[in-house]
């Protein structure tokens, strides 16, 4: 017997069946409100001597005043640039000598600032966190620097096809008046005009305890957590009013192909999608499961088709971006230039197919058992637990959300999936965005007749002939 045969001979042909499942519960947590209205969520998890503190403020990009795109990002990042008591260098140095890498940023719906730190340093880190949230100084020079850094990022985007494709997709999908049509961190026109006054004004309106949430997750008790919250943020005051989410009006109601030129690109970046659903939509779970079958997993239809059957790409996936307003649905991939049109056709065919026929019981069970099963794996770290609890706050989810999540996933039926596909995927409204080499991809895309073909430069200027 050869070596290879000897190896095969000892293999067990019978795939093992699972042992009985071990019950799992999301970490217990307490929600309390300070006198100033700040919501505090404490989730004691004593696995390792670490804790995460995450402050969520209702100051995301969608709360910016008109014409001030980018101010939310500059305000969040500006928190780390200094306080009334010390400059940015000293502030970050103090954090880091505690071993705490402090971060500040945000998304469409919230600004967040936080740290993960060894338990021994939690109190000191929180004290600094309170200082930068309550007394930021936004030094003029650092504001100018952050603005220049954002403009530098925007400049670099012109040769970065993935980021460029994402931005162009948003622009071609949403009505220009919707905030979602424009870059989350602001485009060059508004960012260049942002001043320190804009940031201070935004900070004064949006950075308020009523409407904000402090999450403490990790090696900390509920009592300790509440005491620390009161000590560090108890003096904060005021209310941030909830803003209406950005408009969900589309840029166009019929399908079109948008070709953004990138000369000599060896691949095309593809984004195919349309406006999706707000996080609060009652079809959240059916839509999540439907997308898992379509393009949410490695073993999903879009990836198995484009990667494993056709070898057009390294990876292809789809997803709904869940926001307070209706974020986009988008299928994304990067394919070799000469198969760009065929790849776009395959994505469109998969979207048609999941609407036309019921998914199989096998596909449904793969999606639901995956989504339910990975749930505990997603929440191994204090940072992940804190972020999950922050989402609970940001999207007004019920307190038993995590305890009922797996039941909600398992309750989704084949009929639910089909209904979600029929109602929330719109083949005629899909915008097909291609960032690639026009000399290679334009003619085949035109021949495929997916819709009118529009052409743009890397700066987004319409150059359709």
């Amino acid at each position, binding site marked *: 017997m050869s070596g290879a045969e000897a*190896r095969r001979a000892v*293999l067990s042909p019978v*795939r093992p069946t*699972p*042992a009985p499942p071990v019950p799992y519960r999301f970490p217990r947590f307490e929600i309390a409100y300070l006198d100033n209205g700040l919501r505090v969520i404490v989730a004691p998890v004593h696995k390792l001597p670490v804790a995460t503190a995450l402050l969520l403020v209702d100051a995301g990009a969608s709360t910016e005043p008109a014409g001030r795109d980018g101010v939310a990002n500059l305000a969040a990042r500006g928190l780390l640039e200094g306080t009334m008591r010390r400059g940015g260098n000293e502030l970050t140095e103090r954090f880091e000598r505690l071993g*705490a890498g*402090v971060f500040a940023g945000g998304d469409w719906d919230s600004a967040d600032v936080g740290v993960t730190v060894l338990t021994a340093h939690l109190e000191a880190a929180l004290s600094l966190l309170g200082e930068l949230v309550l007394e930021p100084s936004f030094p003029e020079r650092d504001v100018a620097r952050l603005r220049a850094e954002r403009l530098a990022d925007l400049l670099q985007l012109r040769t970065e096809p993935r980021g460029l494709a994402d931005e162009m997709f948003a622009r071609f999908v949403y009505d220009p008046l919707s905030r979602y049509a424009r870059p989350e961190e602001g485009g060059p026109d508004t960012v260049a005009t942002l001043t320190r006054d804009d940031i201070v004004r935004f900070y004064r309106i949006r950075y308020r305890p009523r409407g904000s949430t402090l999450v403490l997750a990790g090696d900390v008790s509920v009592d300790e957590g509440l005491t620390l919250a009161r000590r560090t943020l108890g003096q904060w005051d005021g209310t941030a009013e909830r803003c209406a989410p950005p408009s969900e009006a589309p840029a166009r109601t019929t399908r079109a192909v948008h070709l953004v030129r990138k000369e000599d690109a060896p691949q095309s970046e593809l984004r195919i999608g349309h406006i999706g659903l707000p996080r609060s939509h009652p079809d959240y779970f059916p839509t999540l499961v439907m997308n898992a079958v379509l393009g949410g997993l490695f073993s999903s239809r879009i990836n198995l088709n484009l990667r494993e059957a056709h*070898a057009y790409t390294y990876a292809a996936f789809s997803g709904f971006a869940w926001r307070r307003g209706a974020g986009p649905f988008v299928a994304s991939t990067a394919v070799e230039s000469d198969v760009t049109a065929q790849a776009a056709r395959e994505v469109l065919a998969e979207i048609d197919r999941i609407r036309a026929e019921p998914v199989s019981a096998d596909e449904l069970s793969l999606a639901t058992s995956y989504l339910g099963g990975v749930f505990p*794996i997603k929440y191994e770290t204090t940072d992940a637990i804190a972020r999950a609890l922050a989402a609970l706050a940001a999207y007004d989810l019920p307190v038993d959300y995590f305890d009922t999540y797996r039941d909600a996933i398992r309750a989704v039926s084949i009929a639910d999936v089909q209904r979600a596909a029929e109602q929330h995927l719109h083949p005629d409204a899909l915008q097909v965005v291609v960032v690639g080499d026009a000399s290679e991809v334009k003619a085949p895309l035109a021949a495929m007749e997916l819709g009118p073909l529009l052409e743009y430069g890397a700066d987004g200027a319409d150059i359709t002939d």
Partner: protein
Amino acid sequence: MRIPIDSYRLSNGLVVTLSEDHTAPIVAVNLWYRVGSANERPGRTGFAHLFEHMLFQGSEHVAANEHFELIQRAGGTLNGSTWLDRTNYYETVPSNELALALWLEADRMGGLLPAMTQQKLDTQRDVVKNERRWSMDNQPYGTWSERLPALTYPPSHPFHHSLLGSMEDLSAASLDDIANFFATYYRPDNAVLSIAGDFDPREARALVEQYLGALPRGEGSIPPLADMRLSPTFGGTRREVVPDMVMVPRLFLTFRAPVFGTDEYYAGSVLGAILGLGKASRLQRELVREREIASDATAFTFDLTQGADLLVIDATARPDVSSDALEEEVAREVTALERDGVTEAEVERAVALIETSFVTSLQSAGERADKLSMFAAMFDDPFLLNEQTERYSAVTVERVNAFARERLGTDNRASLLYVPKAGDGGLPNEAEAASGAAR
């Protein structure tokens, strides 16, 4: 911070490490094979990585892509990765599915070859070529990960050539190559299996024995790598200028460094953190915040355990800053550190940040298992995991300064400098001057 560790060896040579943690009902399985791009033969660059893709294309009792499907259906996550000197495969699953993960790993360790077909190889070859286009060829600065080892290791050195490989070499890979590579390197006596998380040690040991214990050792010895040792410094200053489709210059300033695990490594790692980890690091403070030369600047090590490691400074210029100015300003910071040394406070800051990041990483069962595999595979000692924070804490100002004197000099610097190609929005004169300097 210590985690429980147990380790033993099966009669077929497979090293097993176990680390229990019952805080969540999940378990991580992680396999390291001591083979990476360094083991590729001439004309087959990229093969170790292509081979990793083939390990998801089925085996004796598993259909193509079924490994992915079975693990995801079980509610688990999985992947694999290829590095210069190792390849790993891993899954994290609900703890009642430990047997499934072990069975799948055993089936491909023992029965890969019957499932291999020309069509699967052709498909994965195209997938990998698209991975290369996606991560390197169509990404600004994307080729740095291939150019930097080429610039800093001699042509004959196993770390010199491209990990993702050339398109020509990928095209040349055959089913015979698959069979040979499998027989030579994918064998229990060239692997480490780690299990971390919620398991019963007696049951886990029994399952490991049941599924992997009977696999025979590999036949013949594993071909040794060419001599990996290198002198402590480059022996001069190296420089490569790459005109690319980019909007602003970016510099990778690299130093030859001691391998992971040595005392000097920890001093070098702390030095790297002083230079470029965190907002209060020297490069962030001086180049980003104070002088506004760079929009970002960090430093990191490759963490290689054989031959020689690399310490890399990665700095991206602000749009109005020339590539010459970027190079000069970064060099000035390095020279200042080499000449004047570091302070006690800087060492403390760096060690504190490293310690927090190390401890937080151990929250994840997958990370625990991967680190255990690393110490077992590369040092024959998984218990080293529990010594890491002490190794960092033991670093002193004197040792960092000694490292700086020995390793940061002009006799040990390699600059890989990306500049905007004329016509891509950069300053044409600057790009031409840079191309001239590249000769």
